[in-house]
Every structure is written in structure tokens, then in C-alpha cells.
């Protein structure tokens, strides 16, 4: 498909159009950082952001969601109230978009998670190529950026005065058609600029790490004494998994008031000492080092072996937000 072009002005009108229907989720400034939020006014959208603190996966896996409600006396069970509105997720960076592909494999395969799938089907992912990788970025190690994300339905790449737009999926093409008045075919000059910028940005990412053969070697490292030392400064706060775009583990809880109850699920972290503790007190990961290495093995060995995809996309959130500077890149370099 030939690339399209959207000017800054046309994009502002498109944003206005989508937000007036309440269908737009995009990055907004939140203090010193950025978060994805439902857009009420077009001018809130900030597409010059680098990365959000909380990944946009929360549009697919909300931090807390109701699974069903029930009546304690009659035992009647009701599904949660849900909208069927379509959502446009605008400005998703390639790493975060690629993380959707990881979640798709885990939550959307043979045993599709209905809550996840319902949201997934309603969402159109409008990817946004990186223009300014951060020091903590390493998507080059996994091929999850910096221009295209594997979860993109349609990808925007900044060029002079606007964006080069490429549809990737049928959903993306539908999106482009539905808003065709804002797009036009990209000129040769714009396509050339897109290509030269893409090369420049790719060259900016030189993490020097690679995921090749990692899953296998990582899998064999379980007994290695290096984990003991590596985990020493970890304080088990779990920030790494809360800000991770591919972490999907959850906990389930009940809330009962009077005769009506609700069952919820919400993000949980394998770094918590309670996460793997079972009824009766048995805990397969009783120590800090067990939990610490589990996180790396899960991302870089177990998920790749089970689903044929690396569960790290190199977004660097865990690297920059870890209070004690535990850096997953060091584990990767050691075992690559």
C-alpha cells in the first residue's frame, strides 16, 4: 500500500473529531512525565512525548477490572457493564505496540481471555515512530522498534510539517478510509525524508545487546550463583512489573457489600513475596533471589519458549524507574 501523509493541521482536526466522540486515548502531560488518557480536548494530546510512565497496555488490561457481580442470596451472576465503543489509541510507541503482540499471544490464543479480547477488538492502534530514543531504550535488541511496532494497525512517522502514514492491517486501512479527508498520498520527497529519518533514528539505537540464543542460555542459568549478587540491591518493590508493557499477571479479589458482591482482577507482581504463596503456605519462590530471577526468566526464557516471542520489548521503563537501578540489559548482556 502506498504511504499517505497527514499534515500537523489535519492531524489536529482528526484529533478534535475523535476526541469529540470520546473515542480517543493518547499521551498527555502529567507533571514532569506523560500518561495515556481519554482525551476530552484536542490540545491535551502531546505527540512529542518520549515515553509514558504507565504503558498503554492499560487500555487492554486495566489495572483493575470487574469480572462479574453477583447476588449473595440468589446466587445470580451478572456480567460487568461494558461499553461497545470503538477506541483509537493514538501515539503508541513501537515498543509499546510490539508489547500488544506479546499480550496477543498470551491472552488471545487457544484460550482467549474474553475480557482482553473484547477490548482488543475494539481498539485501533495508531503507532508513532520514535524520534528521540532515550538512554534507557534498547528496542534494537528485540527488533521491536524504533520505526514500526508489530501491534500497529497504522503507523505515523514524523517528517517535516506532518507525518508519513502507513496502514499495516485491515483495521488500519479502514481507519485511513474512514478519515480519508485528512490524508493525502505522500509525495516522493516526503517518502524520501521518511526513509532518511528512519535510518538516522535506527542508528541512534546501539544498545549492543542481542536476543539471539538468549532464551536457551537464560533457561540454563537458573542455578548460576550470579543471581544472588545481582538481586542483592533489589528491594522487591515491583515497580518494574507495574510499569512493564508486557507484564500481564493478575490477582483476583472479591468485594462484598450487603448482599451484592463483585469479583475483580488487577495487576499483581511476581516480585511480591505473596505472589507465589499458596494456600497452606507452600511457596515455590520463597526467597528474594528466586523472585528476582523469575522475572528475567519469565520474560527472556519461559514466554519465548511457550509463545515464540520475547516478553521484553526494550522500552526501558524498568531501567529508568527502578529505585535501585536494577538493569535488565545487564542480565541480557550476561546471557546473550
Amino acid at each position, binding site marked *: 500500500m502506498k504511504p499517505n501523509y497527514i499534515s500537523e493541521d489535519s492531524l489536529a482536526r482528526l484529533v478534535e473529531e475523535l476526541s469529540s466522540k470520546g473515542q480517543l486515548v493518547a499521551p498527555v502531560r502529567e507533571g514532569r*512525565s506523560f500518561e495515556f488518557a481519554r482525551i476530552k480536548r484536542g490540545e491535551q494530546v502531546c505527540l512529542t512525548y518520549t515515553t509514558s510512565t504507565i504503558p498503554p497496555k492499560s487500555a487492554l488490561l486495566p489495572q483493575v477490572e470487574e469480572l462479574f457481580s453477583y447476588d449473595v442470596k440468589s446466587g445470580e451472576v451478572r456480567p460487568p457493564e461494558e461499553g461497545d465503543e470503538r477506541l483509537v489509541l493514538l501515539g503508541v510507541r513501537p515498543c509499546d505496540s510490539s508489547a500488544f503482540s506479546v499480550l496477543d499471544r498470551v491472552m488471545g490464543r487457544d484460550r482467549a481471555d474474553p475480557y482482553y479480547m473484547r477490548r482488543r477488538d475494539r481498539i485501533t492502534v495508531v503507532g508513532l515512530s520514535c524520534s528521540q530514543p532515550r538512554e534507557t531504550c534498547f528496542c534494537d535488541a528485540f527488533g521491536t522498534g524504533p520505526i514500526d511496532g508489530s501491534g500497529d494497525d497504522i503507523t505515523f512517522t514524523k517528517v517535516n510539517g506532518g507525518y508519513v502514514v502507513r496502514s499495516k492491517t485491515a483495521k488500519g486501512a479502514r481507519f485511513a478510509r474512514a478519515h480519508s479527508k485528512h490524508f493525502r498520498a505522500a509525495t516522493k520527497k516526503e517518502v524520501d525524508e521518511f526513509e532518511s529519518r528512519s535510518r538516522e533514528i535506527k542508528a541512534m539505537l546501539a544498545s549492543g545487546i542481542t536476543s539471539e540464543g538468549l532464551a536457551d542460555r537464560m533457561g540454563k542459568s537458573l542455578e548460576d550463583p550470579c543471581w544472588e549478587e545481582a538481586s542483592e540491591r533489589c*528491594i522487591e518493590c*515491583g515497580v518494574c512489573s*507495574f510499569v512493564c508493557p508486557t507484564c500481564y499477571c493478575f490477582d483476583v479479589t472479591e468485594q462484598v457489600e450487603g448482599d451484592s458482591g463483585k469479583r475483580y482482577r*488487577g495487576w499483581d507482581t511476581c516480585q511480591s513475596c505473596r505472589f507465589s504463596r499458596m494456600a497452606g503456605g507452600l511457596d515455590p519462590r520463597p526467597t528474594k533471589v528466586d523472585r528476582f530471577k523469575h522475572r528475567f526468566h519469565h520474560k527472556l526464557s519461559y514466554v519465548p519458549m511457550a509463545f515464540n516471542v520475547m516478553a521484553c520489548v526494550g522500552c526501558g521503563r524498568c*531501567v529508568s524507574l*527502578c*529505585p*535501585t*537501578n536494577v538493569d535488565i540489559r545487564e542480565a541480557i548482556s550476561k546471557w546473550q
Partner: protein
Amino acid sequence: MIGYEDGSTSHRTRPCFVRSPEDTTRLVWNQYCSANLAKYLLGRKETVGVVAKGCDGRSIVELIKENQVDRSKVVIIAPTCPGVVQNPGLGGEGPEQLASYCERCRGRNSPIFDFEIAVRWDPEKESGGVGDKTAYHREAIDWASEFQRCIKCLACIKSCPLCYCTECELDGSLQSLVSKLRIPAELPTFHLVRAMHMAGRCTDCGACEAACPVGLPLAELYSQVNKEVERLLGYVPGLDIQATAPIELPKPRGEVE
């Protein structure tokens, strides 16, 4: 010995565990040393050396008073703190700022030490308002909207050296007061219970604030509570190892209004 070394990215340090004299060359001391290393003293049986900023030393004082740290098994190395930068991990735009909790610092050197190292910081770089006890921003913070942003990851609890309970009422697993799966956090339960548990104990080290991924001004909240403790009971956590902690007082020494 526990100290700081350069982190994996610029403008960061991280805790480092030195086990041989040669490894001491890894140690650094600068405005990025924001973690509170007193956390690593908890549950440690062997004698250990620790680098402590003023506030970290005050945390150790409180931990000694609460029988969590044995003074005879800790060798405290106390260099003068330059004041740390606000949320080094959060990045963001604009120049680095002195952490807001450093603006109301109660002393850059640890009140207790085995080795004190007087560091003369370049006045140009030196943090401006250190020691300004009036540096509270009560009016400027809209707490209700700040708490809305809480994702209840519990990093504030996990990073706090004074949080050493093995069963925490606030982590939601006991299903009694606070549910882990209620976002935004129950108001006022989650944050206010934590604030009350910090009363008379928090040394305003800012470890919680530095760890918070969404950048909540948590140290500010606890400092408000401690301002009341100081006003009512005349007690400032960590300043004086001889002073009786409020939790041990048979009755308040001050007049309770």
C-alpha cells in the same frame, strides 16, 4: 560494606555491596545518591559498614530505637550530603532540581557515626534551601488529585527503611482495611494510614518519593504529620539517639490541644 556506585545510566547511582578493599574504588558520593541504605541493614546478622546521608543516619537512629538494628554491628560512615536530586529515575524535562525534602533537611551529616567525612561542596552546586524548616508546600498540593494517580504498587512501603513489618495491613492481602485492587486508592485509608504509621518515625529521607513511579510528593505528606508530632511532643525523628521516641512515651510531654 554498603555504599553507592555509578548506575547503569547517567545521573544515577545505585547501592553497591563492597566485599574487598580493592572494590572500594567503585564507591561514589554525589547528588544522585538518593536511595536510603539503612533499608539493607534490616535482618542483617553480620557486622556491616554503611554509608549514610544525614537522613539515612536518622533512619538508623530510629531503627536502633525500635530494636531493628544493633548499633554494635553497624559501622556508620557519614560524609556530608550535597542534597539529592528530585526523582532521578523519572526523567522528565527541564533542569534537575534539588529534591523538595532536601529543602527542609535537618542536617546533612548523620547524627551518629563511626567515621565522619566533612565534604566541602562547591557552593555553586550546593543545594540552596537546606535547613529551611519552613519549606513546606501545603497550599500548593491538591492531595485528592495526587492520590488519584496512585497505582498502589506499594513501592513507597518497600523502599522505606522504617517499614519492616512482615505482615503489612496496607498490602491488601489481609482483605481487611485496604484492597490492593481498588484504584484509585481508598481515600483516605491507604495513604493516611501510612502517614500515621510514619508519625514520629519518618526521617524525611524521601526514599518513598524517589521510588514512586508516578512521582507522588509522599515525603511531603509524612513531613506534615511529623510537623504536628514536633509541635505536640517536641520530637523530631532521628535527631537524638537519647531522646525517647513518642511510641515509648508514657504520656505526651507537651500540651495536647
